[in-house]
Each structure stands twice: as structure tokens, then as C-alpha cells.
């Protein structure tokens, strides 16, 4: 167990090191968030739609985009010089690789989310602060959901010849439920309605998290050899 976690940590840290090498990840994801928020704001007919109405959509498009990028990155990095072979040859449980990747991806997506939420408040001035706990809950669960699934799938296909072809295809059916759920909840929360209204969606999200985390962790080991 300790070994497992140690190896996972090593991999996660390496991933983050690779990202930070350019020391630009955060800046760009920050600016990126602003831009998405702004573009979405203008991509609306002002006479018809108020800013607050597009807010949840803007938030989640940003997050999904960031996540997509993060996921591609995570395993492409391993493919460059077939570094993945090096990891597979190492005497570590393959679960460690999975956990490491999930951790790194979570950090990556979280970074984007953390920077974009305040901007979001600034630009749309929606009453976020009062509902912050609820929002954190939603964002957390949803993000976890698609990072876990995404990591599994991207690892599953990274070795096969059609990897890039399959990844998004597979990703799609798994991503839509959590994202849609999250969007629904966010919309309700921002509309100032009680969380209880969105309880159904929340349950879905949580169930999704648990089921797929367990499932992925088990399935992962089966995915890697060609």
C-alpha cells in the first residue's frame, strides 16, 4: 500500500514537473478562462439574454475544455519517447500509474477551476460567494467524475493504433452525464434555489464518482499491454 502510494506520488509529481517546466501552465489557463468567459458573454444576443443566464454554461464550457486538454496531455506525454514502456518495466503496481495520473489531472483541472471561478464572479457578478460551499461540492464531484473516466479511457487507448480516434468517442458517453448534471445543479444554485431541488442530480454525480472510481481502478491494469 505504502509502495503503491509512493509510486503514484512519484508519477504525479513527474507529470506536474513536466507541466511546470514551461512555468506557463497557470498563467495561460487563467487568461484562457477569462477569454472563454468573455467570448461566451459576447456570443449572445444582448437584447434577448441576460449575462447571468449564460453564466453556468460559460463556467462549464471552460472546465470541460480544460479537462479535455488535460486528459490528452497526460498520456501523450508518456507516448513521446515511449516513456510509458519505462514505467511499465518498473516494478510498480499498475494501479500506481492510474492513481498518479488521476492525481496529476485533478491538480491540472483544479488549477484552471480555481483561477476561473473568481474571474467568473468578477465578470458576471453572480452571487457566488454565498453559495460557495454548494458550488465547490458540485464542481468537485463532477470534475472528479470526468477526470477518473477520462484517465482510464485515455490510458486504455494510448497503446492501440487508433488511440486518438477512440478516446473522444469513448469519452463522450461518459462525460455527458456528469457535465450535464453539474450544469443543472450550478444553474439552480446560481438561481438561488435550494440545493435540495437538485438532489437527484447530485446523487447521480456521487454514484457516478464511486462506481467509476472503483471500476476504473480495477479495469486499469487490464488496459496497458499492447
Amino acid at each position, binding site marked *: 500500500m505504502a509502495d503503491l502510494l509512493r509510486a503514484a506520488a*512519484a508519477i504525479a509529481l513527474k507529470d506536474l514537473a513536466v507541466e511546470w517546466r514551461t512555468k506557463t501552465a497557470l498563467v495561460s489557463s487563467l487568461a484562457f478562462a477569462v477569454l472563454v468567459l468573455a467570448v461566451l458573454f459576447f456570443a449572445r444576443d444582448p437584447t434577448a439574454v441576460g449575462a447571468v443566464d449564460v453564466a453556468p454554461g460559460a463556467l462549464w464550457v471552460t472546465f470541460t475544455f480544460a479537462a479535455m486538454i488535460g486528459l490528452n496531455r497526460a498520456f501523450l506525454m508518456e507516448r513521446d519517447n515511449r516513456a510509458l514502456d519505462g514505467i511499465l518495466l518498473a516494478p510498480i503496481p499498475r494501479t500506481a500509474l492510474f492513481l498518479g495520473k488521476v492525481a496529476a489531472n485533478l491538480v491540472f483541472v483544479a488549477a484552471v477551476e480555481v483561477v476561473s471561478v473568481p474571474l467568473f464572479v468578477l465578470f458576471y457578478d453572480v452571487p457566488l460567494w454565498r453559495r460557495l460551499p454548494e458550488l465547490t461540492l458540485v464542481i468537485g464531484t463532477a470534475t472528479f467524475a470526468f477526470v477518473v473516466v477520462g484517465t482510464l479511457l485515455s490510458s486504455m487507448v494510448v497503446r492501440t493504433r487508433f488511440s486518438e480516434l477512440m478516446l473522444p468517442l469513448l469519452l463522450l458517453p461518459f462525460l455527458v452525464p456528469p457535465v450535464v448534471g453539474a450544469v443543472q445543479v450550478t444553474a439552480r444554485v446560481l438561481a438561488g434555489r435550494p440545493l435540495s431541488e437538485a438532489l437527484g442530480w447530485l446523487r447521480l454525480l456521487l454514484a457516478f464518482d464511486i462506481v467509476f472510481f472503483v471500476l476504473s481502478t480495477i479495469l486499469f491494469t487490464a488496459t496497458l499491454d499492447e
Partner: protein
Amino acid sequence: MPRAEPVLVAQGVSRRYGHRRVLHDVTLEIFQGQVILLIGPNGAGKTTLLRVLAGLLRPSAGRVERRGSVSMVAHHSMLYDVLTARENLRFYGRLHRVGASRAEELLQQLGLAARADERVAAYSRGMTQRAAIARALLPDPDLLLLDEPLTGLDDASCRVVLDVLSDLRDRGRAMAIASHQVAELMELVTAVGFLKDGRLLALEPAAGRGTDEVLARYRSLLVRG
């Protein structure tokens, strides 16, 4: 040389890519202190065989049994371009549970110490190859698989690598090397395997045979087999 234990046993290994059969019922054992040189024309299946032996590729038929730690130098460096050589070795060191001192030692040995803090992306081909070899040596493996290990190395580095490897051999480690540079490697090898069209035509002791002899044998096998 102590012929004690086989570190690896491969039984009737075959591998297909789509409809092309790349490996054909290959059976071999590798013993401690043994160094097998695999030679064969381009496309014979050397790389594929090594990857199967390493466990990176699942054989379509047959079984491979590894009794000990395996490490590999492949066509690809397995290094992260944006990280420095030192960072790469540290990382793999952590995975293999060896101390940072080991990494330093290897950087020294392979003459990378001076440049160890540069991104591997900025390395020349030969330097990258040396870094890749250092990576593979980290765990001091029981079985070391090398795919054209001398690629891009200058004479000096060739010498260094050969010395390191023969030292490994004398310490009872086993090796399988795929290469076209027979002459350079003869001093090292204890057996030669002739591969063609995915078949292991012969696996013969190299004891006292010279390069020319081996190459002659190789040609004769090619025309016959």
C-alpha cells in the same frame, strides 16, 4: 561462467500484427552471465522479440517466463524531453527504489555529469542514447535487453558502454542484444542467435569464434533458411 539459473524462458513464442506473422514459434532460454547477440536482416523480428521478452508486447502464442528484474534499452529513449537527464534518472530511480547516488554514479560513468542539468531535448543523438542506457542500468537488472545499443555513440562512448556491459556479464547478469554492429560486440557475447522472418534459425555459442566466422555462418543461414 556459472550457467546456474535461467533468468528467462520463452516457449514457442509467436506474435502477429494483423495478418503478418512477425515471430514464429521462438523458443529460447537465457542464463545468468550469458550474453546473446541477436542478428538478422531488417524486419527479421529482433525488436519485436525483445519487446515480447521484456513483457511490453503480449505474444499471440507461447509463453514467456521472467525470473528476475528486466530492463531494456529500446529504439526510443523512454525519457521525458522537457526534463533534464538528472530529473529523468531521479524519477525512474524512485520507481525502481534506488537512491539518487546511483543516478549520479551512472551520469558520471556515461560522461553526462557535466550536462546532467540540461533538458534531454537539447541533447545530441549520442548523448540521448547514453542517457537512455543510463536509465536502463539504474536497477542493475538480472536481465538487460538492448536494441541496437551502440546507435549514435562515438568510439569513446562505445568503449565505455562495452566495459560497463562486460562488467555486468562478469557479475552474472544476463543480456540479449539486437544489433547489426557485430564486430564491435563480439568481445562481449557468449552466444549468437540468428533470426530471419521471425524464426530463430539457430542459437549457437560464440566461444572463440571471430566476427568473420559468425558473419559467414549468418550468410550461409540466410541463403539456406
